[in-house]
């Protein structure tokens, strides 16, 4: 569901905003001060509990899932026996659980809680699920991925929903805005449906005219131009990709609230075996802005991340916290250069375990580690001509049931050049390089490298 949601965000937002987003070269002023928001913590808690019971009821009565057979005894046993590492599949643990957390977070936000309050909502919802709603022992990694992933996806969804919804919209426009807003902020959308007459309540997401900016591009790949021998499967690599920048990465518009500034790079790539989602989200939790000369700006911040990367048969993901800096330089004539770098802790991640064990349900290793990233982009007259992104993950694979102890180093380099062809549309060339070296017990150290170059068409807004 995250895959569908993220792929739809760029299209949906632009249709809904209808030209409200200003051009990339000009950040908008900071938003006006908002009225105090009424918080309804008890209602949020009730809705989180309701979500859990709703999901459980579906799994129990429609799905007849074995783990849904719960009772007072299973709850008591879970509290008594404590935590374990969960052995569910990669997609369940790192795609589905964050979406579940997204709903918890959405419940908090929909009831006037801020980032930290809604984060508690995600943590509480996940804790309740792990302790009460499954017969199996509670899972440490599920608690982390549901909470951290839910916070990131939930805040992004909430911010986007506030851009889409408009207080004085009427008729089909209102229907469309509310529909897209409900996809982005599910619990908030349901609450608005039940309390429709209260949509002037200042605790609800406001109109898009609050001064936030949204820039980005959508990209569709053409032919594969070159690739390394290590690739498997067919030569085709259909890919849809997007980038969304909320707020100015260099801090213009920063009001001190978490995720006033965030960036989201997504890609859905088909093949060789299944669609692979790559998604890099980072949002500023705290920071300080510095004004530079000639309209330049700088931002020093602490960021929260949730990231997936997948190309061909190589995949890695995790939740992390970093510290870093972003700068925007305005150069004559109408040239903008943005650069950023971050370094931090990857709290809990996973990478595919290509050695595999026959009969083993889980084909990935759990890890903690260090993460680093650097980005560079050059734009002129609102069109981005060049971008370079580097991601690094230094993983220490956990020696826990189902995970192979070891060490890994990942380096991912993505670059592209594009030129405008007609209005906001352009064509370009993208290259991607992924290298992974590993030391797994009891195997010999080794490495894998993949390279691919693709042509693409792009729409920038």
């Amino acid at each position, binding site marked *: 569901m995250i895959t569908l949601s993220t792929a739809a965000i760029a299209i949906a937002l632009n249709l809904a905003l209808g030209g409200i987003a200003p051009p990339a070269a000009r950040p908008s002023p900071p938003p006006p001060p908002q009225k105090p928001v009424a918080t309804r913590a008890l*209602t949020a808690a009730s809705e989180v509990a309701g979500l859990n*019971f709703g999901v459980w009821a579906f799994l129990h009565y429609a799905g007849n899932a074995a783990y849904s057979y*719960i009772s007072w005894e299973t709850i008591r046993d879970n509290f008594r026996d404590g935590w374990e590492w969960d052995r569910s599949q990669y997609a369940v643990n790192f795609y589905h659980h964050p979406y579940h957390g997204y709903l918890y977070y959405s419940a908090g936000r929909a009831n006037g809680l801020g980032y930290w309050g809604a984060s508690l909502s995600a943590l509480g919802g996940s804790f309740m699920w792990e302790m009460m709603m499954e017969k199996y022992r509670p899972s440490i990694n599920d608690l982390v991925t549901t909470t951290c992933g839910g916070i990131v996806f939930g805040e992004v969804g909430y911010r986007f929903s506030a851009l889409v919804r408009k207080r004085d919209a009427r008729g089909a426009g209102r229907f469309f805005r509310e529909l897209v807003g409900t996809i982005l902020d599910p619990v908030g959308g349901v609450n608005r449906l039940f*309390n429709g007459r209260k949509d002037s309540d200042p605790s609800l997401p406001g109109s898009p005219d609050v001064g936030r900016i949204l820039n980005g591009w959508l990209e569709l790949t053409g032919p594969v131009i070159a690739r390394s021998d290590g690739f498997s499967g067919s030569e085709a690599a259909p890919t849809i990709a997007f980038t969304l920048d909320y707020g100015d990465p260099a801090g213009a518009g920063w009001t001190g609230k978490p995720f006033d500034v965030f960036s989201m790079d997504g890609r859905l790539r088909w093949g060789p075996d299944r669609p692979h989602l790559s998604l890099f989200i980072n949002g500023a939790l705290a920071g300080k802005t510095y004004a530079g000369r000639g309209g330049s700006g700088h931002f020093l911040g602490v960021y929260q991340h949730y990231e997936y990367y997948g190309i061909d048969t190589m995949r890695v993901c995790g939740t992390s916290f970093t510290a870093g800096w972003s700068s925007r330089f305005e150069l004559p004539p109408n040239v903008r250069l943005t650069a950023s770098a971050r370094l931090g802790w990857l709290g809990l991640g996973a990478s595919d375990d290509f050695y595999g064990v026959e009969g083993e349900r889980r084909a990935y290793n759990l890890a903690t580690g260090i993460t680093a990233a650097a980005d560079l982009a050059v734009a002129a007259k609102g069109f981005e001509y060049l971008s370079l992104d580097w991601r690094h993950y230094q993983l220490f694979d956990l020696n826990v049931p189902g995970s192979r102890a070891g060490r890994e180093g990942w380096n991912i380099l993505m670059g592209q050049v594009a030129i405008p062809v007609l209005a906001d549309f352009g064509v370009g060339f993208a290259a991607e390089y992924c290298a992974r070296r590993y030391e797994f017990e009891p195997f010999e150290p080794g490495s894998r490298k993949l390279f691919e170059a693709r042509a693409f068409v792009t729409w920038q807004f």
Partner: protein
Amino acid sequence: MTTRTLKTRLAVTGLAVAITLLLASAEARAHEGFIPRFSVEVDAGAVSVKEEGFGTGRRYGAGVFFRTGHRMGLEVLLESYDVSVAEGAAGLAAGRMNMTTLLVNQEFFLVTHGRVLPYGLLGVGCTFIGYAPDVPPEVEMDFVDRIALQLGGGFDVRISRTLHVSAKARYNMVKTWVEELPREEPIRMTDPLAQDMLHLYGFELGLGIKFSF
């Protein structure tokens, strides 16, 4: 209880509700009713369990109600019923099954004012199931306790400022199985999908009173 007696009881319940509506006090006619902020309630009625070999019986319950929204409220109710178990039903000897449930129900009111306040409800119950055979068996058997979904609806009729009569119908959906006692390992180690599953879905009718504050 036979089907005929159940029908009789249903008819009596309906008649009682109709009489209550007709005899609503003058005070209730003079003032608009509303969803109470807080109530204490007691009710009693009948239950019929769907699973073959399980009969019908009496139920009773007591609890509290909190208004939580414009047209919503939360009911916390402790209810209990027992029904007969026929010889051979679920592999058991003849006896009686008792089900005690701690319910947390969300009630959604269709109207917020008026003498009659109809509502739908959705909730979950923590169910404790007991079994008492007529003749003590060689091997002790019992039902596995469960958490179950509950669906239903009802209406409150305002009699006075502090008194409502409440009529409700619920469907309590317990999926469980019978196990031999004593159990040797935690219940989570038992694969429920490998069990002979019983759908102890109880259809409950109740008539009660609510004291509002």
